[in-house]
C-alpha cells in the first residue's frame, strides 16, 4: 500500500530551479534511499515533505489524502517525523528534555501543571535502550558525542507512532561502530511497519538497508528502481551523470 505519493513536485527559489517534476511513491514499511550529488535537491525535497517549504507546484498525497503542510508541526501531526542533518537539538538541555521538547509529559491541572521528570527519564531511557545507545537521559546534550546526539534525535521520532520517518544524513557525523547501530535502528523501524526516506552520501548505507533507490540529479529524478536490481556502480554513474537516466 502506498503511504506517500509525490506527484510532479517543482520548487524554485527565485531564478533557481531546485526541483523539476519529481514524482515517486513510498510504500508502507518501505525504506527508500534518496541519493544525489550536492545541490541535487535531496534536502529541498525532504524539507517539502516535512513542511518546511511549500512546493511551487505539484501534489503530495499522504495516506490517500492530499496534504498541504504549513509548518513542520503539521507534518508531524499527520505522522511524519524528521531527523534533521544538524539534528536540531538544544545543547543546554538534557537528553530527556530534548527527546520530549514541545511534547513534555505533564502532571496536575492547569494552571498547576508541572513536568513529570521521572516519567520522561524512564521513557527516554527505554527509547535509548531500544536503540542500544549508551546515552543517559540526564546528561546535557552539550557533553555528548556525535553518536549520542544522533540517538537523541532518533529517539525523538519514536515518541509518537509515526508512519514515515525522514532522515537527512543520519550517519554523516558518527563513528563507524555507531553507523551499524543507526542502520540497525532503521531496520527496526521497518520491522515496526514504519516507512523511512533515507538521504545519505554513503552508498553502503543505502545498499544495506533500503529496498528502493531514487536518484536525483540537478533537481530531476533520473532513477527509481529496486535496490536488488541495481548496483553501486550504476548508482555512482547515475549520481555523477555518467549514466544519463534509467
Amino acid at each position, binding site marked *: 500500500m502506498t503511504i506517500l505519493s509525490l506527484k510532479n513536485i517543482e520548487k524554485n527559489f527565485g531564478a533557481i530551479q531546485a526541483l523539476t517534476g519529481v514524482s515517486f511513491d513510498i510504500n508502507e514499511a518501505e525504506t527508500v534511499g534518496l541519493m544525489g550529488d550536492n545541490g541535487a535537491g535531496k534536502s529541498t525535497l525532504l524539507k517539502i515533505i516535512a513542511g518546511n517549504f511549500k512546493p511551487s507546484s505539484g501534489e503530495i498525497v499522504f495516506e490517500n489524502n492530499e496534504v498541504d503542510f504549513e*509548518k*513542520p*508541526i503539521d507534518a*508531524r501531526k499527520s505522522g511524519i517525523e*524528521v531527523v*534533521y542533518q544538524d*539534528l*536540531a*537539538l*538544544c*545543547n*543546554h*538541555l538534557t537528553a530527556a*528534555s530534548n527527546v520530549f*521538547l*514541545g*511534547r*513534555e509529559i*505533564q502532571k496536575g491541572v492547569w494552571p498547576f*501543571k*508541572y*513536568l513529570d*521528570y521521572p516519567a520522561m*527519564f*524512564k521513557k527516554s*531511557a*527505554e527509547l*535509548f*535502550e531500544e536503540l542500544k545507545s549508551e546515552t*543517559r*537521559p*540526564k*546528561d*546535557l546534550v*552539550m*557533553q555528548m558525542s556525535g553518536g549520542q546526539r544522533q540517538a537523541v534525535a532518533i529517539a525523538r521520532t519514536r515518541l509518537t507512532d509515526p508512519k514515515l520517518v525522514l532522515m537527512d544524513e543520519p550517519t554523516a557525523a558518527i563513528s563507524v561502530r555507531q553507523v551499524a547501530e543507526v542502520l540497525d535502528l532503521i531496520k527496526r523501524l521497518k520491522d515496526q511497519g514504519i516507512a523511512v526516506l533515507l538521504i545519505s552520501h554513503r552508498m553502503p548505507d543505502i545498499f544495506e538497508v533500503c529496498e528502493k533507490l531514487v536518484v536525483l540529479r540537478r533537481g530531476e529524478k533520473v532513477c527509481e528502481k529496486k535496490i536488488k536490481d541495481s548496483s553501486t556502480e550504476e548508482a555512482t554513474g547515475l549520481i555523477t551523470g555518467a549514466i544519463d537516466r534509467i
Partner: protein
Amino acid sequence: MSSNKFNQEIISKTEKTFFQKLVSEQSFWVSIALLGICFVMFFVEDAFSSKDNLFNITRNFSFIGIMAIGMTFVIITAGIDLSVGSIMGVTGVICGLFLDAQYLPEWYSKAAYFEGVYVWVAIFLALLAGVIVGAVNGYLIAYLKLSPFVVTLGMMAIARSLALVVSNNKMFYEFGPKDEMFYEIGGGSILGVANATWLLILLTIVMGLVLKFTSYGRHVYAVGSNKKAAELSGINTRWIEMSVYMISGLFAAISAVMIVGWMGSVTNALGYTYELRVIAATVIGGANLMGGVGGTFGAFIGAALMETIRNSLLMAGIDPYWQGTFLGLFIVGAVWLEKVKNKKN
C-alpha cells in the same frame, strides 16, 4: 524485569556527580564569595553585622533582585532588556499619580478613596503598565524581528520620557487617606525581614520552579539554546520570546511599587541607571548573554553580592565615587569568567 533494572541504573547515572555539577555552577561560587565577604566584614567592621545594617542590605538588594529575576528570563532567551530602569520610572510615577489623586478628576478620588480601593487600583495600574510596555518590547523583538538591544534601548528613552510626561516633572508624595497601608506594603517588615526581601524570596522560588518544572520554563531555555530546534519541535517561539519581556516589565513594575512604598515618594528619576545594576546582578549570578543558561537563584545571589560589596566598600571608607568602577569591573569580570569556563569545557 532485568530491563527495568537496567533502566533505573542508566537513569541514575549522569556525566557529572552532584558535587561536580555544583562546582560548575557560577551561582555556587558567587555564594561562596558572598559568604567570604560577610565573614571578613564580620571581624573587620562591627557595624557591618549590626541588625540594622543587615536589614538595610537585604532590603536594598531586594529591589534589584526582583528586577533581576525578570531579566533572567530575558537573558536565558539570549535577549537583553535595557529598558527596565525606565519601566520602573514610568510605572512608579503611574502608581504615584493614582495614589496622589489631586491631579486627577474629582470623581476618581471620590469613588476610589472609598475603603482604600485606590491603593489597589494604583498598584494594579502600575503592574499593568509594566506588562504593556514589556509587551510592546516583546512584540517588536519577537514578531517584527528587531534586535533586542535596539528595541529596549529605544524603550529606555521612551519610557523615561513618558515618566516625565505623566508626572509633569512633579514629585508625588501625598498618598491619600490610606497612605499608611501603602507604606506598609513596600516599607514594612515581617519577623525582622523587609517585605521586599520576603517578596524577592517568594518570587525566586516560584519563578525558579516555573523554569525547572513547567514546559513553559523548558521552552524558554530551548529558545535561548537553539531557536531553530525549538521551532521545529512545534514550540511557539515567538510567544515565548514576547512573554519574557512582559515578565521583565511586570517585575520592574513590582519592584517600582515596592520601592515607592518604601521611599514614600516618587519622581520621574526613579530607577535611573538601574538597568546596569540589574543586568550586572543577572550576569554575575551566572546567566549567559549567549542564551540557554541562567536561573533565579543566580539573580538573587548576584544582586546580594553586589549590594554587599557596595555596602562593605562604604564601610571601609572608600569614596562612593568609585562605586561605578567596581560595578563595571564586576560586569566585565563575570562575562570573562564565563568565557574561561566555556573554554575549559
